[in-house]
């Protein structure tokens, strides 16, 4: 099939190409036949898929699930956590700077070099994805740093840059897909046995 048919159907020809193609459509029987067949096919295809209507109670179900923190999602987070812990055990690596334990909380320092950034915020599932605004402090040479206290556990996080761009921590050693084609960094906070 002549590839120009695709371009014509999609309206991706310039005026000159369009005129030449339309002229040829009138003269070239094969081209005309292919074009007509394709148009008919696309129209018939569209007719086969009438808009469907979601069940009427679906909104209530979703709101209810959100409110009760649906179990499926909890299991997903647990599975990510378990996978990360297994990986950590297997590789024997710790990835963050954990300092002295105060009761149940561990000091965790986030450091990232972003020379072009004016402001950098921390967003993770430990602060409800930025609900509590936590800004990293600029310390010079484009380095941003922030120390917060977290309980031992496995977390996901990203950095928000200048109120618009969001990136996973480029220094993280573990990542997970966020389901939108992007990645979240994984943070593992280990408890300390002594102190």
């Amino acid at each position, binding site marked *: 099939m002549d590839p120009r048919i695709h371009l014509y159907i999609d309206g991706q020809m310039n005026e000159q190409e369009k005129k030449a193609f339309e002229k040829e459509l009138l003269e070239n029987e094969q081209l005309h036949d292919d074009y007509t067949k394709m148009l008919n*096919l696309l129209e018939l295809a569209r007719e086969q*898929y009438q808009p*469907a209507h979601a069940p009427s109670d*679906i*909104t209530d179900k979703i709101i209810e699930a959100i409110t009760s923190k649906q179990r499926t999602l909890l299991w997903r987070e647990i599975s990510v956590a378990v996978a990360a812990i297994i990986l950590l055990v297997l590789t024997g690596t710790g990835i963050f700077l954990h300092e002295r334990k105060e009761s149940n909380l561990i000091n965790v320092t986030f450091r990232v070099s972003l020379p072009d950034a004016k402001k950098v915020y921390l967003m993770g599932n430990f602060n409800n994805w930025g*609900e509590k605004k936590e800004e990293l402090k600029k310390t010079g040479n484009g380095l941003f740093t922030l120390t917060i206290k977290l309980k031992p556990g496995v977390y996901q996080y990203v950095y928000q840059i200048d109120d*618009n761009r969001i990136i996973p921590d480029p220094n993280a050693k573990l990542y997970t897909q966020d389901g939108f084609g992007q990645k979240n960094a994984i943070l593992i906070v280990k408890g300390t046995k002594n102190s």
Partner: protein
Amino acid sequence: MLETSQNAHTQNEHEIINQCKKGNKHAYRLLIEGYKDLIYSVALRFTHDPDTAEEVTQETFIKAWRHIKKFEGRSKFSTWLIAIATNKAKDILKEKRKILDTEDVDTVTEISVEESYIIKEPEDELMNKELGLHLKKLIDGLPDIYREAFILRHVELLSYEEISDIYKVSVEAVKMRVFRAREILKKQFYKEK
């Protein structure tokens, strides 16, 4: 006039999304009401099963809620939702059945269509309804990456750019998929050699 109306809609939606980011579930209810049929339709096209489509729709909105703070407005909200829905549909289908891995385009050239559905002169042998069903069967038999791109383009009427946003592939790659789907369907539908 249409443009003004569209701008007003976008502005309004932007405000609703901001409310959702602050945790306002009443605002989110408005978004669900506005997009539930679209997402359910997309889910149904991809899963062919009303129960699975409902599950995909619910999971999509639940996930969107949990991550709404990460929605930056670089694409349309509907495109963002469809991206989540297509991923969810794939995840759920993978759990329910083993599906052909269609990531490698080059390995997928054969289309599975029952011989009985191959017709020589469709306009003479079958009525329009039957022709439509036959075509739908052919669409369903396309490899996933072609079928999904074709449906998003020609049924949901998304632009190539929007589909490219959904699958995180180039616009050219999306065009290739749609063009290929059209050609396969034309060849099969009209029994061309």
